[in-house]
């Protein structure tokens, strides 16, 4: 009987080393990681051997999904509002309620025709992504002038965000080249000739 009691006392496991490790792991994760952005579409980037990192700040990210729909995102959400105001200055009939502006600013990436904006931004934040997934920013030229896509890029460039703006293109591996070509040629028309193509890492042998 007595022996059994002593054994019971031994059941207490020392958690200190475990919590030590936990704290270390937690600190590691907190310091090294960046939060996953809730992007409008899921994009499978093609692999490349290039090891250049994407610049961290002042990046205008262009997302292209596999059907060729285009979305834009800024790495600093604070500038979304300024960009929107720039676009409102150029496009007539884009009047948004404060609630809609708030919804827009909260988006990690957006892609909808200007004509649909007030309609889409009325919805709950969680529904907006679902809706804009089917839209994308049109690249068709308006009356021979700039396309909506170009207007947005121009607006980003002219905000205080864009003094040293870098363009990162994140396109799906299955995107037809036609779409990419069209988009790049529109950027080239605006004399934006340098891009970062976002890829995933691959070994040289493959």
């Amino acid at each position: 009987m007595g022996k059994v009691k002593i054994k019971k006392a031994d059941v207490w496991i020392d958690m200190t080393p475990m919590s030590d490790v936990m704290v270390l792991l937690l600190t590691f994760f907190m310091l090294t990681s960046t939060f996953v952005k809730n992007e409008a579409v899921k994009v499978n980037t093609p692999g490349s051997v290039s090891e250049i990192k994407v610049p961290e700040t002042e990046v205008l990210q262009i997302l292209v999904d596999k059907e060729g729909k285009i979305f834009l995102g800024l790495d600093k959400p604070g500038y979304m509002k300024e960009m929107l105001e720039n676009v409102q200055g150029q496009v007539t009939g884009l009047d948004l309620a404060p609630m809609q502006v708030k919804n827009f600013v909260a988006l990690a990436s957006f892609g909808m025709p200007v004509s649909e904006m007030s309609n889409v931004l009325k919805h709950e934040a969680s529904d907006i992504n679902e809706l804009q997934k089917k839209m994308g920013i049109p690249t068709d030229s308006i009356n021979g002038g700039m396309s909506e896509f170009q207007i947005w890029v121009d607006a980003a460039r002219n905000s205080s965000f864009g003094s040293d703006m870098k363009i990162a293109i994140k396109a799906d591996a299955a995107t037809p080249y036609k779409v990419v070509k069209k988009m790049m040629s529109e950027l080239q028309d605006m004399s934006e000739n340098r891009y970062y193509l976002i890829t995933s890492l691959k070994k040289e042998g493959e």
Partner: protein
Amino acid sequence: MAKKKASRQKKAETRVDFTPMVDMMMLLITFFMLCTSLSKPQSMQLTMPSNDKNVAEQDRGATKASQTITLYLAGNDAVYHVDGIPEYDNPACLKKTTWGADGLRDVLINHKTEEGYTPVKNIKASKALLDAERAKDKSMTDSVYNARLSKIKNGELETGKVPVLTIIIKAMDTASYKNLVDALDEMQICAIGKYVIDQVNDDDMRLLNAAGIK
């Protein structure tokens, strides 16, 4: 026996129960692991020629025919290459190859100029030497490495100036974005400094149609 037991119990009381803390830690770690991305994605830099027509015309025709390869990226992951200036009326000048080490890379590496020189092979060898040197000498900074690499890519080897290849990449509308990135990747692997992404023009279209390439 009884006395011993009592003293043991007293000692045990000084212990603090860490279990709730560990529980919380576990939760936090799980949260961070799921909600964050550890690695930043890779990227490749691409500079496109300006759409300004006047600039583009000046740079053309600057290299020898035997130092030029034109790549046509077609649909269904097909890739064709033309060595030298494409003969637009002769579909036989289009040669089909495959992606990867045995196909396109092999073509690029073994391409001979009219002097019987293999530029890519030599440049690649120099790059490998540079990489080995960098692996040994940790003090070599990125800027030094990049400066030397771009010198090598321009054909300025330690043994003297050698010709370099110029690659013209022409992707058809049916090609996918992956094909383009793969082609750019081969440029990187083969240390080719001079390459350009060009539009498929009417002459190219005629050639490709004659060869039945979609």
